[in-house]
C-alpha cells in the first residue's frame, strides 16, 4: 500500500513537472515569432501564422533597448505582411508612449512566458526548454536583421532570423553571426 502511494505521488510529481516545463508541441519559432514595425499611428506585425484572431495577446520586444511590453492583435492587415516571405500581416495595439518610434521589434506569441533581466539583456524561455532566449536587432547596408538566440546572444544557438528592408541606406552594425540567412 505504501509502495502504491509512493508510486502515485512520484507519478503525479513527474506529470506536474513535465507539464510545467514541457515544450508545447504546437509552438514553433517559425509560427510564434514575428517581426513588428511601430510607426506613428500604427503598429504592424508580420508573422508566419494566418490564424491569429483579434484580442490575441502577444509580447512585443524592443531589442534595441532590451525591453518587453504587452501588445494585442487588433485585426488582420494585408499590407503588414510580406508576400515574398509568405508571412501574414496584422495590426497591433500597444502603448507606444514610452517608445522612440519608428521602431523595428520582435513579437513572441505564447502563454505564460515571463521575461527578466540577465545583466543588460532581456531574457525569456519562450520555447519552454529551460534555456533562456535573447533578442537582437542590427542593421546591414539597408535593412534590419532580427534574431533570437538560446543561452547567449551571438555565441549561443540562433533560433530565429528575419530580415526587414528599410528602404534607405544605413550604417552596418551587424556581427557576422547575425547576417547569415
Amino acid at each position: 500500500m505504501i509502495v502504491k502511494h509512493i508510486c502515485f505521488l512520484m507519478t503525479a510529481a513527474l506529470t506536474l513537472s513535465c507539464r510545467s516545463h514541457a515544450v508545447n508541441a504546437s509552438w514553433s519559432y517559425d509560427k510564434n515569432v514575428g517581426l513588428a514595425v511601430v510607426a506613428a499611428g500604427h503598429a504592424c506585425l508580420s508573422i508566419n501564422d494566418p490564424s491569429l484572431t483579434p484580442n490575441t495577446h502577444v509580447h512585443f520586444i524592443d531589442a534595441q533597448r532590451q525591453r518587453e511590453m504587452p501588445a494585442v492583435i487588433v485585426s488582420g492587415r494585408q499590407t503588414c505582411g510580406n508576400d515574398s516571405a509568405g508571412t501574414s500581416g496584422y495590426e497591433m495595439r500597444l502603448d507606444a508612449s514610452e517608445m522612440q518610434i519608428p521602431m523595428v521589434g520582435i513579437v513572441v506569441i505564447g502563454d505564460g512566458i515571463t521575461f527578466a533581466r540577465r545583466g543588460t539583456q532581456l531574457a525569456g524561455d519562450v520555447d519552454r526548454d529551460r534555456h533562456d532566449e535573447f533578442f537582437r536587432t542590427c542593421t546591414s547596408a539597408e535593412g534590419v536583421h532580427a534574431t533570437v538566440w538560446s543561452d547567449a546572444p551571438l555565441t549561443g544557438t540562433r533560433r530565429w532570423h528575419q530580415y526587414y528592408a528599410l528602404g534607405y541606406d544605413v550604417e552596418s552594425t551587424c556581427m557576422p553571426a547575425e547576417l547569415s540567412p
Partner: protein
Amino acid sequence: MPLSGPTWVSQFPTSKRVEDLAQPFRDQVARFVAAIRAAGATLTIADTLRPPERAYLMHFSFEIAREGVDPASVPARAGVDIQWVHPDAPGTPSAVASRNAAEKMVQGYGIAFKPALNSRHTEAHAIDMSISWVGDLVIAKADGTSVTITSAPRDGNNASLHQVGASFGVIKLATDPPHWSIDGH
C-alpha cells in the same frame, strides 16, 4: 529659404526606374532584368536611385532630432535650399522649434535607424528587386549561353542566380536580400 519640416519629405523621391541608374551599370541592369523576365521569373523593382539630396535630408534631420546636433552646424548642400535653423518670434534661433521640425521629418520619412549619407544607391549604382520563380529557371547569361537553375531557394537569394547576375556586372550583396549593385556593396 524654406524652413525644415514635413513638406520636404515628398521631395527628391526614390526612383524605381532602371533609366535613372548611371552608365554603364544602367545597361548591365537592363540586360540582366530582361534575361530574368525572359526566363519567366517574376521581378519587381523596389528602388534604384536614392537621390543624394534625399539622403542628406534624412541624415541631418535624424542628427538634429535624435542626436542633438546643432542645426546651425549642418553643412549646406547644392540643390537643397533648406533652412535647418528655425527662428524664434523675434528672429533669434530656436533650438526647440528646429528640433521639432526635424523630428517631423524623421516621422515623415519613417526613420528607425540613422540614415547613411552616401551609398551605391545615391551613386545610381544599385538596385533593389524581388525575384521569384516556380520550378527550374532556364536563363541566359551575358555571353548568351544558358544555365538551368534547379536549386533552391527560388528567389533572389539563389547562389546560381548570383553567378548569372555577375556575368552581367550586377553583383549581389548577400546581407541584404533585395540589393544588387555594381560591386556588391
